[in-house]
């Protein structure tokens, strides 16, 4: 029982892991400036030009998982056709920023909306 109660993945508290190195450190994070003086639709241009391929990869994986659960493709169809309508109900400046991200990345707006409401969907 004691063995079962013990977390098989647990370990003693680590020490001296900072500055980050070694196998648990996978790299530093790039820094981007978001200029709030620009119109909302232009703020994310530079970042999205640099990261569009990575974002496409994640969204495609999400769609693949959705297709695995709903093989008819209905779930993905809803994202591409219905979710895009949500944009007109979202508050300013977020609605304009999402449109800007879709334009800069070339990713359909419905998929950008999906990525931005993922948290709300997955709290169940």
């Amino acid at each position, binding site marked *: 029982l004691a063995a079962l109660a013990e*977390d*098989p*993945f*647990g*370990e*003693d*508290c*680590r*020490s001296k*892991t*900072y*500055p*980050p190195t070694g*196998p*648990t*450190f*996978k*790299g*530093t*994070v*790039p*820094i*981007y*400036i*978001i*200029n*709030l*003086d620009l119109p909302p639709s232009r703020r*994310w241009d530079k*970042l*999205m030009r*640099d*990261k569009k391929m*990575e*974002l496409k*990869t*994640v969204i495609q*994986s*999400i769609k*693949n*998982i959705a297709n695995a659960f709903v093989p008819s493709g209905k779930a993905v169809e809803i994202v591409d056709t219905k979710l895009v309508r*949500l944009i007109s*109900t*979202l*508050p300013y400046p*977020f609605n304009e*920023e*999402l449109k800007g*991200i879709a334009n800069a990345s070339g*990713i359909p707006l419905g998929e*950008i909306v999906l*990525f*931005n*409401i993922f*948290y*709300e*969907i*997955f*709290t*169940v």
Partner: protein
Amino acid sequence: CTSIVAEDKSGKLYHARNLDFGLFLGWDIKNSSWIITRELKPLVVTLDFQRNNKTVFKSTNFAGYVGMVSGIKPGIFTLTMNERFSLDGGYIGIFEWILGRRDGMWMGFLTRTVLENGTSYQEAKDQLVKTRLLAPAYFILGGNKSGEGCVITRSRQAALDVWDLNANRGTWYVLETNYDRWKAPLVLDDRRTPAMKCMNQTKQENISLPAIYDVLSTKPILNKLTVCTTLMEVSEGRSESYLRECIGSCSPW
């Protein structure tokens, strides 16, 4: 996720988190990793939001996501958000929104608004406590003065609990994973107990960002879902983020 706000003996505040995401979103047997967790790592960026060429706030974000999950308003406050699972979850909020009930706020938009417009710890706290939401959440807020730190447990409608720092009474840190603090965590997902054990072992006199990084590097606080670790120190406006990897014998969540 695991978020921690801690106060040292001099009253200096530290705020750090492990961002865990991707549970049940496809397991890659070959690489022994969650597909979405792995694919999100190249999307992690530090954003410096500026007005008139001056920093308004900084955040650690996924490129393409306009809301905030971790952010710092230098000299004023720090904020992280942890996911709170509930049957009364965000999908109900989305349905209500589609049906025309739009008095709630999208979680990411609220955190962004607080970071962009908040002018004090108390103002940020009030907004996070009172604003109606589409989805439940935990907000972990740190300020820049002794005692300014809390975990706000939110349902969609209201704050269920506000757990404040109080170093004079022994509460020199607050720590949140993904469970209500008055309930035991899921037996298979207890990151709270080992994290608290490591914090207590570190002791208040030794607390620092490197010490908290040690805690967040300990399994199972570091696990297969961990995308990155963010360290923030409000008085100096310091914010650092590191991509993480849990290889070998690691908890899948």
